[in-house]
């Protein structure tokens, strides 16, 4: 049997997708189904004086209209993470109602929902719901929101502050370290708000079976079991065993489909009210207005250096937007997923980070691919390249000088940071070394100098990042405010014929678990890949799970899978020993069979499986069957890292930035399927490039989303992007059984600052040091011509 781990196996799930047979939620039509369409506030901040539904109700095909008053007794959507103020006071956690009653708090806030026999009738009738609004002043900037006199999003959150928070060394020590530095680099910048834009819009169907008093929610979510828990225990107060949550094929998530949204709870609640299935699918305009956004930090960072270029200290103040309501994991993103990453790959001896989280009259902000770690990496890597320029040092050399020395986490301790983490294993020099070789650094510098002579602007930018993923040890995150455990669950059910059904709480919305997880099982059991079926995304099949985000599927879900595999092999060994009349210790399991060591006596996996279910000749006292579940709670985060290099050309006449090359050398630990990992890196890189060059969620001063469609929000397109040049080093994770670290977010974390640094390098002859993202032709042209 060939080893399956480490092979670029073609994806099992592709057959249905390339033939149009995928089943996304909007593809489902249930008998007797009705359709929901929302009445959404056109204002960012407005009092709702009255809602008149009479005309809408009279419209042909309309069945019901629900307003905030109808659901006032239903709980709001909960937040899953509590971060306290520095003072110890609990964060401000205003209710997030399913439909607003008195006040709209962002453009797109749901005021009412129309239910009709057809999509068209529901949509028509939305225009007939008469809402009398009194428009109020709005605030959209996370820093301005905290100023005295700013319009309040929630009356019980003074200065719009949700919480303030700090981490690191005592502030005085950091102040002293920076004050005593030979050089201090200071940057003020925004990490602009972006919109995740999974190409499948969110879609939900609520269904209620009166005969069995049972609900089914079909939902485009990244974590069906967590949605069930939040829906049942916190919002609707219905028992979990009476609710099935199904999320079969999901068209991308990138974080935006982690969270529990009000529309999920509403379609479920209304399905019972009406006794008919209710479907809602967002159109793209609604997706722009209501899918949780990402980033939105306003930051001042100061980094000190000694004469040799060693980092002496780092001081950060960040304002982070929460939006109009707290989304599921929002408070964790600028704190425990951002502040904790500010050590980066460097030996910075003193670090202090201060975060103020504010409510703004905008869509909620929550985890978006990388979640906090891209913000931390952007900050650090912009500082490093800027400092190198200011000190006249080479940016690669500056990084080599400050890298944490290698440690394997096995016989060398994990690296303890100043910001509350212990890195598992790391070896940082080789990734940058390899990236420099791939780019041909010395030759590039010569080419760049020659190009400048000819009036052509080339630039190179670096980014060396670390991230924390494989989220997360439950006790650790519990101590930090998480209101959930972050373990994962697996079940390995060996069927009588030796075929294997695997049930995983991880969820694939593009990651390819049906292939990668099957490779692990086939490899460990020594059976063909076709003998393994991976089931996910249905709470009635899969016992429990915490879903997929934070690059956790393989590191946590894969580890849970290995635990169940080991239990199967252990029991199989007892059965094999009995059948072969040998001692268990005399058996070895390899290539799909148990063999008595040193003999040719063996029994295959299929025969042992059959014996477990037809237990005629069977060990006394052993239960029949071959079916095991496991929960795996990781002991630490995993810490992938890498080096990214971008090469850009800037058009002197138009300011247009062209990305000429992108090199990504990543270390994600052991790799199960290199093809899939490369694909994750490509996609992540381009999302990060998108933020650097194109994307921005722009709200005007009144809180109108100006970039509310694909005509206005610039997504990276095929002809904006070159082929991505990738390579890897491998530093295994020392604390999980597969040695894997996670690859889903790496690309998006590393790439953004590399591109911005490259543009700054190209613009260095103009004395331009800092430009806001996205680097549009206009802003670059203005910078060159001011």
């Amino acid at each position, binding site marked *: 049997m060939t080893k399956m781990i480490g092979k670029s196996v073609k994806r099992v799930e592709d057959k249905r997708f390339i033939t149009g047979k995928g*089943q996304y939620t909007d593809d489902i039509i249930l008998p007797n189904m009705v359709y929901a369409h929302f009445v959404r506030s056109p204002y960012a901040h407005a009092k709702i004086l009255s809602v008149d539904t009479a005309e809408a109700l009279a419209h042909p095909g309309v069945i019901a209209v629900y307003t905030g008053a109808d659901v006032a007794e239903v709980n709001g959507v909960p937040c899953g993470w509590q971060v306290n103020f520095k003072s110890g006071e609990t964060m401000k956690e205003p209710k997030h109602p399913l439909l607003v009653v008195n006040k709209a708090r962002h453009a797109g806030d749901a005021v009412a929902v129309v239910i009709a026999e057809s999509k068209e009738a529901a949509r028509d009738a939305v225009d007939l719901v008469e809402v009398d609004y009194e428009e109020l002043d709005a605030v959209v900037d996370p820093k301005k929101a905290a100023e005295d006199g700013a319009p309040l999003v929630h009356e019980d959150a003074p200065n719009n502050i949700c919480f303030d928070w700090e981490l690191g060394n005592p502030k005085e020590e950091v102040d002293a370290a920076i004050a005593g530095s030979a050089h201090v680099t200071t940057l003020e910048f925004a990490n602009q708000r972006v919109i995740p834009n999974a*190409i499948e819009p969110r879609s939900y169907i609520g269904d209620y079976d009166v005969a069995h008093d049972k609900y089914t929610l079909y939902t485009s979510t990244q974590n069906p079991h967590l949605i069930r828990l939040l829906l049942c225990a916190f919002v609707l107060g219905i028992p979990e065993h009476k609710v099935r949550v199904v999320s079969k094929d999901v068209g991308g998530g990138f974080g935006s489909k982690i969270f529990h949204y009000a529309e999920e709870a509403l379609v479920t609640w209304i399905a019972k009210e009406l006794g008919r299935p209710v479907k809602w699918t967002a159109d793209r*305009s609604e997706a722009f207005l209501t899918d949780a956004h990402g980033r939105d930090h306003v930051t001042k960072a100061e980094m000190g250096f000694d004469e040799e270029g060693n980092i002496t200290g780092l001081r950060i103040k960040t304002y982070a937007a929460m939006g109009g309501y707290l989304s599921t994991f929002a408070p964790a993103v600028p704190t425990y997923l951002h502040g904790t990453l500010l050590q980066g790959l460097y030996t910075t001896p003193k670090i202090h980070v201060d975060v103020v989280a504010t409510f703004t009259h905008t869509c909620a902000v929550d985890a978006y691919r990388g979640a906090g770690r891209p913000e931390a990496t952007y900050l650090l890597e912009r500082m490093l390249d800027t400092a190198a320029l200011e000190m006249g040092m080479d940016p690669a050399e500056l990084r080599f000088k400050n890298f944490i020395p290698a440690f394997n986490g096995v016989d060398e301790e994990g690296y303890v940071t100043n910001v509350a983490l212990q890195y598992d294993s790391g070896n940082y020099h080789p990734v940058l070394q390899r990236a420099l070789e791939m780019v041909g650094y010395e030759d590039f510098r010569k080419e760049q100098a020659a190009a400048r002579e000819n009036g052509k602007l080339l630039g190179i930018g670096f980014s060396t990042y670390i991230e924390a993923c494989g989220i997360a040890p439950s006790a650790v995150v519990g101590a930090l405010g998480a209101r959930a455990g972050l373990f994962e669950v697996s079940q390995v059910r060996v069927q009588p014929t030796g075929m294997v059904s695997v049930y995983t709480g991880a969820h694939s919305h593009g990651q390819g678990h049906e292939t990668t997880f099957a490779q692990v099982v086939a490899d460990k059991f020594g059976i063909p890949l076709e003998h393994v079926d991976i089931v996910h995304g249905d709470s009635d099949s899969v016992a429990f799970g915490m879903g997929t985000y934070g690059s956790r599927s393989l590191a946590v879900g894969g580890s849970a899978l290995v635990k169940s595999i080991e239990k199967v092999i252990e029991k199989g060994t007892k059965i094999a020993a009995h059948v072969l009349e040998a001692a268990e210790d005399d058996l070895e399991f390899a290539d799909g069979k148990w063999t008595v060591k040193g003999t040719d006596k063996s029994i295959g996996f299929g025969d042992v499986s059959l014996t477990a279910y037809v237990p005629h000749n069977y060990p006394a006292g052993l239960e029949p069957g071959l079916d095991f579940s496991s929960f795996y709670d990781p002991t630490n985060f995993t810490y992938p890292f890498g080096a990214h290099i971008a090469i850009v050309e800037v058009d002197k006449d138009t300011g247009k930035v062209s990305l000429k090359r992108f090199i990504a050398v990543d270390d994600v630990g052991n790799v199960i399927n290199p093809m899939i990992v490369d*694909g994750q890196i490509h996609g992540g890189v381009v999302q990060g490039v998108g933020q650097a060059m194109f994307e921005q969620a722009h709200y005007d001063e009144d809180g109108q989303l100006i970039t509310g469609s*694909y005509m206005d929000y610039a997504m*990276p397109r095929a002809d904006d992007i070159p082929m991505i040049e990738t390579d890897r080093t491998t530093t295994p994770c020392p604390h999980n059984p597969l040695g894997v670290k996670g690859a889903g977010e790496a690309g998006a974390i590393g790439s953004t600052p590399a591109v911005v640094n490259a543009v700054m390098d190209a613009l260095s002859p103009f004395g331009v040091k800092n430009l806001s993202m996205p680097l549009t032709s206009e802003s670059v042209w203005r910078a060159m011509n001011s």
Partner: protein
Amino acid sequence: MKKQINLTVNGKAYSHEVEPRTLLVHYLRDTLRLTGTHVGCDTSSCGSCTILMDGQAVKCCSLLAVQADGANITTIEGLAENGTLHPLQEGFREEHGLQCGFCTPGMIMTAADLLSNNADPSEEEIRHALEGNFCRCTGYHNIVKSIQYAANKINKKEVVS
């Protein structure tokens, strides 16, 4: 006032009464239940709904069903012939040209149009042809390779994976 339309979809003749405002994509998805054609936006920007109409790639979210009266339509479900995958379908699988799969049908149909007009496109021509199709998962890298794979296969060149 419903209107009668007669059209051929994936080689099969259909006749239906539709509302004049029914979009072609909704007719294909809801009436014919060909759900491989997806809706990703409402501004004909994302390309997830791309189909072939009389051999040409069109975004059917911005066409009315009545405009397809008399047309010959191919959707992703009709691309394979007698159970044999189209070289593009094969290419997307071989080169990992898809992750979540949502944009994939539109990508494949757009590429089918490209290859029918340009059997041996350069990387630049492929990228230009895909300008109207968004993919958020792959960074386009492997989509370009998938189309090159298909072009090579169609041109009976040696496929180097």
